[in-house]
């Protein structure tokens, strides 16, 4: 009933006047924008990359995490890094050590497992930016998304940008976005052409035959931009 109501189906676009009069949307004159939960942010990235495992149940999984997690715990915990599809299970299956949870979780406000949680807060912090931008897992998702773009039928950059937008934001780019992203991808192509070693590291692992490494690396860079957008991690 709620989700089919006209109130729920409103847009979350808000005028300056409305946000001044009702900053917290208590009068429900619009939909509220809500940042996704920790697990869902990761799930969305994996889904955009097209590799989300839909397996249900089973043992906890150990996706890659940065080094140094156990420096400040009494004991070094075992973290046998998962391989294959287990890297792409939904976030709710990630093994949870109470004294040092998978760092994505507390960074994006997942509650501690030892207390009841009546609501999750939704903070907006620089550590979240570092996680989405630099974490090894998220970079892998960007590479996998780039792989999907390169393997697609798209024949022009315009089409590839459109495809990338659809896979991440489920909409087509605005003219501004199209132009801005094209400029970005062009700059990356140029840079990686001059830095082939870097291009090799950044490009997806499985390239269609006709692709230059430097061009492929540029699409990883573009995928990384999209996976870092506020819109991508927000339920609009």
């Amino acid at each position, binding site marked *: 009933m709620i989700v089919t109501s006209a109130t729920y189906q409103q847009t979350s676009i808000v005028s300056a006047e409305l946000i001044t009069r009702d900053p917290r949307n208590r009068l429900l004159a619009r939909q509220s924008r809500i940042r996704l939960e920790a697990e869902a942010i990761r799930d969305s990235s994996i889904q955009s990359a097209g590799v989300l495992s839909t397996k249900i149940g089973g043992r906890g999984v150990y996706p890659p995490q940065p080094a140094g997690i156990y420096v400040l715990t009494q004991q070094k915990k075992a973290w046998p890094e998962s391989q294959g599809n287990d890297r792409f299970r939904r976030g709710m299956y990630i093994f949870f050590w109470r004294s040092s949870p998978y760092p994505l979780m507390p960074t994006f406000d997942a509650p501690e497992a030892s207390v009841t949680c009546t609501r999750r807060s939704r903070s*907006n912090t620089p550590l*979240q930016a570092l996680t989405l931008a630099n974490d090894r897992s998220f970079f892998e998702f960007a590479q996998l998304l780039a792989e999907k773009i390169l393997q697609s039928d798209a024949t022009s950059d315009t089409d590839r940008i459109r495809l990338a937008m659809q896979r991440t934001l489920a909409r087509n780019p605005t003219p501004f976005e199209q132009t801005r992203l094209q400029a970005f991808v062009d700059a990356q192509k140029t840079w990686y052409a001059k830095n082939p070693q870097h291009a090799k590291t*950044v490009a997806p692992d499985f390239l269609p035959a006709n692709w230059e490494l430097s061009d492929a690396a540029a699409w990883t860079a573009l995928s990384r931009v999209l996976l870092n957008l506020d819109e991508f991690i927000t339920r609009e």
Partner: protein
Amino acid sequence: MNSNSNNQQNHLGVRQQTRRHFFGSAGVNLGSLGLASLLLGDDLQAQSAPSTSTSEPHFTPKAKRVIHLFMAGGPSQLELFDYKPKLQEMHGQVIPESYVEGKNFAFIKKDATLLGTQRKFRRCGQSGLEISELLPHLGKHADDIAVIRSMKTEVFNHGPAKLFTNTGFQRFGRPSMGAWVTYGIGSESKDLPGFLVMHSGPRGPRGGTPLWGSGFLPTTYQGVPLLNSADPILNLSTPAGIESQGQAEFIDAVSDLNNARLQQVGDPEIATRIATYEMAYRMQSSAPELMDLKSETQETLTAYGITDPAKPSFARNCLLARRLIERGTRFVQLFHTDWDHHGNAGTNLGIPLEQRCAETDQPAAALIQDLKNRGMLEDTIVMWGGEFGRTPQGEPREKTPGRDHHIEAYSMWLCGGGIKGGVSVGQTDELGYYAVEDVVPVHDLQATVLHCLGLDHKKLTYRFQGRDYRLTDVGGNVVTKILA
């Protein structure tokens, strides 16, 4: 603002975030974000002001920041700060039953015998504070510090006791002191987190991340571990193959697209997101710069006792703590582990205690002096202590002397902003078993630290699960005797 809207806002930690980020109290610099302030406008600023916390102190503070030297394991007050002639006299006798009637201990039994200390104590400074020979460097600062000899806590196992000292509650889930403080008065750092945690010693402290967690407060306020690894902050380095130019172009592209979205949908949360990416980018250069001690003089390194600046140590962490507060960090916590001196080989009051003291005494004293030289001691609290103390009874597990966990009395010291130097507060009985005069429960210590920072511990609250919570739970009295 009427009280009704106040109440409503108590539940809106999320929106408080928006507002906090805008006004820089969470450390995000919004100098370049004119758009954000335009969107917010003065009305919204007023309405968004959280009623339960303040980015201004409740009253004029004496201190602006805290460096907490946490000696994990429970350092023995009877070897370091609390000399008891009667205990020496009764060495080897079974403790009188009147002391231990109805008491439980972690390991020892009621028939344990009293253990006189083998350590000499000296009167130090003009104040004549009695401090152990094991802490010669601290002794030179006797007139700067206030020693509390009558600390008292509630739990005798390490994990819960550490949680209690740090969060005011013995189970997981409450915000830590550093989180409360940054929630209350924000941070002055534009390029680094407001609450940072460092570690030295053979292992991390029992209890783990909840010791510096934000509990039910927004995670903005959680302590950020500063690591000794290549990445001092998790995910600080760009992925392999992305150089600084590529990272700058990445941040620019993300910001431009976020900005376009902001103009379209008008949600100020997006402006905050843009600011967090800018700060993340700045942290990528500010954190390595912080960790690089090349700009420190040899004289400074020597004073702290740092032999190899690249090698992790308590001494290096003390110097990093000074560098952090110079950069505006509000709360720095240093954990140094392995003070749990029960009497086993490697964990006893002989050589292991001497080693812990040697590792920490000179750096802690150098920190006091360094802050003094830079005029920062007057508004920085330095606090030293563990989660509990050790029993007057010995725990001779092997042939080496040791003591069990003790919650009835232990010692800590504080100095700096708002704290009186050269005083001792509180006394224990003649055996050092019970704190008998001016007893300072943990909540009183917490209330006192908050007081020095200009925060009333009863007013620093956060509504969660239907009621207001505070660091000091339902306790806490400011220890006025140590206030300057």
